[in-house]
C-alpha cells in the first residue's frame, strides 16, 4: 500500500523577485506529523504557500506530488478540493459573510456534496464547544473583529469541519497564550488519524510537547538542512539555529 501523501522534489520558489526556496525536498506519509522549524526568512511560510500554489509565489523548478497526482501547477481551489488545508498565519477578514455560511459553502465545495443544514450546525456547535469558541461567533462575519487568538481558533474550526487529508499549520501557535495553544493542539489531536497527516510550521516547541511529532525538519536558507525527531526540536529550543547556519557554509 502506498502510504505516501505529499512529496516535494527539488523545489525552487521566488517571491517578490527574490529566491526563497532553493532545492527543497520533503516527504510526508499518511499518519505522520511533521514539523518545519527555521529562522525568520528561511522559507517556512513560502513552503506552505507554494504547496497551495499561491499566485504570488513563483515556482522556478521542482515538483509537488499529492496523493499520487502532480499538483505543482494546479489551482489553489483544486488543491484544496484534493484535500490540502492551510491554516493561515494572518487569516483574512471577510465582512458580511457569517462563519456559518462561509463554512457551509466551503464544505459544499470541498466535498462536492450538498450540506445538510441541521447536521452541519450541530457539528459546528460541537467543534466550537471543544475549541472554546463562543457560539455567537457562528453568525459573526468571518474573522471581522476577531482577536488574534480567535482567528487562529477559527482556522482550527475550519480544519475540523473541512477534514482534509493534509493539514498545514502555518505558525498557528504564534502570538497565542498558553491556554490558546492548548486549545489549538487539542483541535489538532481531534483531527489527526492514521489516514491523514499534519505539517506544522512553527517557531517554538510549546505546541509540540502535546503532539509528539514524528519528524522535525530544520529549514535554513530555503533548504532542509537537518531532519530528526522531537529531540531535535528540543535541541533547537536550547541552542537556536546558529549551528545550522554555520554548517551550511
Amino acid at each position: 500500500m502506498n502510504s505516501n501523501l505529499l512529496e516535494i522534489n527539488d523545489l525552487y520558489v521566488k517571491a517578490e523577485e527574490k529566491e526563497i526556496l532553493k532545492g527543497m525536498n520533503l516527504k510526508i506519509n499518511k499518519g505522520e506529523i511533521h514539523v518545519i522549524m527555521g529562522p525568520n526568512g528561511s522559507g517556512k511560510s513560502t513552503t506552505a504557500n507554494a504547496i497551495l500554489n499561491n499566485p504570488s509565489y513563483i515556482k522556478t523548478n521542482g515538483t509537488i506530488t499529492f496523493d499520487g497526482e502532480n499538483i505543482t501547477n494546479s489551482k489553489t481551489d483544486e488543491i484544496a478540493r484534493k484535500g490540502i488545508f492551510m491554516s493561515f498565519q494572518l487569516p483574512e477578514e471577510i465582512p458580511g459573510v457569517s462563519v456559518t455560511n462561509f463554512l457551509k459553502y466551503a464544505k459544499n465545495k470541498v466535498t462536492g456534496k450538498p450540506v445538510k443544514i441541521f447536521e452541519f450546525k450541530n457539528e459546528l456547535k460541537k467543534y466550537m464547544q471543544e475549541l472554546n469558541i463562543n457560539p455567537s461567533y457562528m453568525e459573526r462575519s468571518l474573522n471581522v473583529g476577531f482577536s488574534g487568538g480567535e482567528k487562529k481558533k477559527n482556522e482550527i474550526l475550519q480544519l475540523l469541519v473541512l477534514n482534509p487529508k493534509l493539514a498545514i499549520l502555518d505558525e498557528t501557535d504564534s502570538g497565542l497564550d498558553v491556554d490558546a495553544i492548548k486549545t489549538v493542539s487539542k483541535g489538532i489531536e481531534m483531527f489527526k488519524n492514521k489516514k491523514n497527516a499534519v505539517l506544522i510550521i512553527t517557531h517554538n516547541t510549546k505546541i509540540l510537547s502535546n503532539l509528539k511529532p514524528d519528524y522535525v525538519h530544520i529549514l535554513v536558507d530555503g533548504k532542509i538542512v537537518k531532519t530528526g525527531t522531537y529531540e531535535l526540536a528540543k535541541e533547537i529550543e536550547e541552542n537556536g539555529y546558529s549551528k545550522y547556519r554555520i554548517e551550511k557554509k
Partner: protein
Amino acid sequence: MAKTKIEDINRNIYDIKNEDEYEFKIEKGLTPDIIKEISKQKNEPDWMRDFRLKALEIYNKLELPTWGPDISELNMNDIATYVKPKSKLNSSWDDVPEDIKNTFDKLGIPEAEKESLAGVGAQYDSEVVYHSMKEELIKQGVIYTDMETAVKKYPGIVKEHFMKCVPIYDHKFVALHGAVWSGGSFVYVPEGVKVDIPLQSYFRLNSPEAGQFEHTLIIVNEGASLHFIEGCSAPKYNKVNLHAGCVELYVKDNAHLRYSTIENWSKNMLNLNTKKALVGKNASMEWVSGSFGSKVSMLYPMSILNGEGAKTEFTGISFAGKGQNLDNGFKVVHNAPNTSSVVNSKSISKDGGKCTYRALTRINKQAKKSKGMVSCESLMLDDISISDTIPVNDVRTETAEFSHEAKIGKISDKAIFYLMSRGMSEEDAKAMIVRGFAYPISKELPVEYAVEMNNLINLELEGAIG
C-alpha cells in the same frame, strides 16, 4: 460543479420579450398634438391636459443638465412616450392577458402577492394592468390604485399633491414627465392606519424605443405607516429606452414610510428618475434602493425634513458592469430643528463600469441641533472600472453635527487566495466577497429582492474571469 438553487436563476427571465403588441402606440416624438392625443386616449379631465401642455412648454425651455453622465444619445424624436397595452385594468390575475401574465408570473409577482404582500400593482408599458389590495385595508380607508383612476376618482387629493412635491420646473426630465406621465400608483393611508405588510408595484417596459413615465404619489397621513416596494425591469433591446418616472411622497407628522426599490432595467435604458419625500414633524422616511440595470442612471432620491424631529435614512447600493454609468446618490435638506439623516451607500463596479456617488446634505440655519451622517463605500473589481464620490455638504448652523466617511477599495488578492484555499473557485471567491460587501444593504431589502440581488451579483461575476 454543484450549485445552490439560488445561483441557478439566470437573466433570461428579465429578457423575455413579448411581441410588441399594443392597443395603441403613440407616434414617436414630442409635440402638443402628441400630448393632446395621450390625454385624449386617457379620457382625462381638461385640467390635466392643460397641465401636460404647460409641462411640455417648460420642457422645451429647459436645458439638459451640464453635469453628470453623457445622455446626448437620447433623441426624444425616437421615443414613443405612450404605449397602451392590450389590456384593461384588472383586479384578478386571471383576467390579465396570457402573455403579459406570463411575464409577471416569471418575475414572481403573483406568487409574492400571495405570500407576503398586502397589495400589488403591475404596470406593463404605459398602463397599469393589474391592481388589488387586501379587503381589510380597503375597510380601513386605504386607497391603492393606479394614477389614472386617482385623477378621476380623487381629483381633490390629486390636485393638491400632484407635482407639488416635485415641481415640473425642477429639471428637464421632470418637465418631460409632467407632459407624458402615464400609469404609476396612488396610495393614500388615512390618519393613524398602520399598514403592516408591504404594498408593491412592479413596472415592466416591454416595448422597444419607448419610454416609461409612471407617476407614484403616496400620502401617509398623521401617525400612519406604510412600506411600499417598487420593482422595475425591462428586456434588452438594441435601441435606447427611457425611464423618467416621478415619485412624490408625503410623510405627514408622526408618520412612517419605508420605500424600497430595485431598479433592474436592461442595459439599454436611460434611467432618469426623480424621487422626493416631504417629511413632517417627528415623522420618518426610509429609503432602500438597489440600482443594477440601465446604461445610464441618474437617480438622487431626496428627503426634505420640514418638521421638527423628522428623520430620514437612505440605504442604497449600485452595481455597474460593462458599459454602465450609474450616477446615483441621495439628497437631504434639513429645514427644522432636531432633524436627523443617516446615509449608507455602497457601490460596486466591474468590467469598466462606472459608479458615482453624488450627494447633497444641507443643514439649514433653522435646523438647530440636527444631525447628519454619511458613509459611502465603493468596491472596484478590476483596474478598468471607475468609482467616484462627489458629496456636497452644506452645513449652515454651528449647532449641527455632521460626519462624512468615504472608502474606496479593491478586492484583495489575499482574500481571494484565502477563500480559494477553502475550495472555492476564483469566481466563487469574488462573488462571496461582493455579496458580503453588499450584505448590509441587501439585508434591508425585501427578501425576494435580496435573493434577486444576490443572483444578479453571481450572474454579473459568472464568466467574468478568463
